[in-house]
């Protein structure tokens, strides 16, 4: 298994990732990366859920 498949550990640095997002404020689509979050000095909260059209 390559290193990129490993699960990130608590207290460790999270490898960069990209998520293609729908941004309701801009009503537009855009990619968001962890790198740009770090550059902006912002905290990131990821909130995973199984599927749209279900409860969260």
């Amino acid at each position, binding site marked *: 298994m390559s290193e*990129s*498949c490993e*699960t*990130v*550990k*608590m*207290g*460790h*640095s*999270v*490898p960069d*990732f990209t*998520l*293609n*997002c*729908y*941004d*309701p*404020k801009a009503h537009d*689509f855009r990619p*968001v990366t*962890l790198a740009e*979050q*770090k550059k902006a*000095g*912002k*905290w*990131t*909260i*990821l*909130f*995973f*859920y*199984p*599927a*749209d*059209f279900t*409860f*969260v």
Partner: protein
Amino acid sequence: MGATLITVSTDTEFTHLAWKRDEKELADVKYLMGSDVNGKVSRLFGVWDEDSGLALRGTFIIAPDGTLFNAEVNFFNMGRNVDELMRKFKANIYLAKKADEGCPSKWKEEGDKTLRPGPEMVGKVHEALND
């Protein structure tokens, strides 16, 4: 609080738009809705469920320097509580500034009692919490 909330599922960003548009519960949503169609990011955080190809209900807090500070994973049928999340998030922000302190279980917000581990506290946590 200078944080970016991104919700993530294996749906596309286009499905996110359609869901946001159709579901009245989401009318006021302002957070980013991320797409993890290939499950890459879900795998990275250990919430990928091979059998269903879906992500478990995981919440992760990442500091501005990229460090993973908090992880919580609920099974498919348990919803999350925003108050629980906010308590942890506030504690993470506080502890990022004061790494030598600890936020005990009853800590709710800045100003509440914290603990400073050291020789004097060994066997005296009760006194430290109640003094």
